[in-house]
């Protein structure tokens, strides 16, 4: 192999067909209210964690539903479980259980 000083780069596109959606499927099965999200961002705005560190719960569970789960374990640990997100959700998404379910899914899928 020749070293050219550059190489083929990984595709940054979310490839829905190839992504591993096991966590998404587990989440949708055990906490289906997550599909009610309309992306309003109330949860992220109310989030206790998000105002101190980079953490966007709305984006996180949307990414999971698309099968993007890289770095998920580290991200999900940031949640302080205060429940304010759930309080403000206009769509009735059970966000505390979304976090718990993701954790359970992570344990089960490794």
């Amino acid at each position, binding site marked *: *192999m*020749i070293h*050219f*000083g*550059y*190489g*083929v*780069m990984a*595709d940054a596109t979310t490839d829905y067909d190839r992504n591993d959606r096991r966590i998404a499927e587990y989440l949708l099965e055990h906490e289906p209210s997550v599909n009610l999200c309309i992306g309003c961002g109330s949860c992220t705005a109310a989030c206790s964690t998000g105002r101190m560190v980079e953490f966007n719960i709305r984006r996180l569970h949307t990414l999971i539903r698309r099968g993007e789960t890289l770095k998920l374990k580290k991200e999900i640990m940031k949640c302080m479980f205060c429940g304010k997100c759930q309080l403000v959700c206009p769509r009735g998404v059970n966000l505390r259980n979304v976090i718990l379910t993701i954790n359970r899914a992570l344990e089960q899928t490794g």
Partner: protein
Amino acid sequence: MNIGGKRHIWKDYQKEIAGDRFFYVRSCVRQNFFPGSEKTFLRIMKEELGKDVFENAAHTTCSGIGYHSDVVPFETTMTMVARQFALMTEAGYENFTTSCITSFGLYNEILETWHHFPDVEARIREHLHRATGRTFNKPANVSHASDVIFKFRKEIGAPGNFRLVSKKTGKPLQVVEHIGCHYAKMFPSKGVGGAEYPYVLTGMIEEWGGEVIDYPERRHCCGFGFRQYLVQANRGYSISCTKKKFDSMAPYKPDFILTNCPGCPMFLDRWQYALSEMKGTTYGENGLGIPVLTYEELAGMILGYDPWDLGLQVHQVPVEPLLDKIGIPYDPGRKFLTMDGKPMGQPLAPSHLKFYKHV
């Protein structure tokens, strides 16, 4: 796929292409990349079609590479282009034909800019006059040389000439056509067939007996994109684009790729070598790669010109399998001889991409 749907769109993108008396401007890079192409264009136009094509050795770069790499300001570019128009005017021509796609895009961009901002045109005229004393008329018709070959595709594909058909099976060859981004993506109406389903190369392939492959990444850039390759550290962007296209077209087993831009054939051809050295992957049959042609080379092949006069020996991917498929004769012994018959040296064999061995 329903071809009728494409024909419906093509109806809306018919452009006027001049028929004779062309002022021809060459590309900066093509004579290095594909040295026989421009010469073949002139040969076809003059010898086969009997057209008047005029060249002026004083014409310069349009500065498109510098412009798209952010090192030449637009004002300078416009003034240089104005000078090309002055050379055309002085020679008594009004049909401007470019060899390069980026030039073609840039000429159109500048004419469009002047159309909408006449004060800019006036300023550029003043710049040119101050710098060179020249004045100019705007061209009556701007075409890319592939438009011109498209216009005369019937004449080139006249009965008795070679066809894009497998000699062995009698079936049409499967062809990937790739259009330079600057051909129609900026101004769809300036390209034959528009930007989404360009017809300029498809028309040649159809006329000459081949079939066009519509593969998913057909619209994707070849990987040229100036800033992607000028700096070595950025070339990963370039080769990643090219790989995306190859991965997408591979299942359709193309017999060759036809292009109309200086950069596309260069990168689609040479990156096959780089990809094979990086990844060990080759495309095409038997590890020989997918041959990549310019439209002039293909037109020359159809007309039965000697492949080595067309410059096919400087391609990275060997073209002989394609010549064999069509049944075009060639002398393997002459492949690496110069015009005056001396050995020009031979490239080293790559580790994965195979050399063609004549049996």
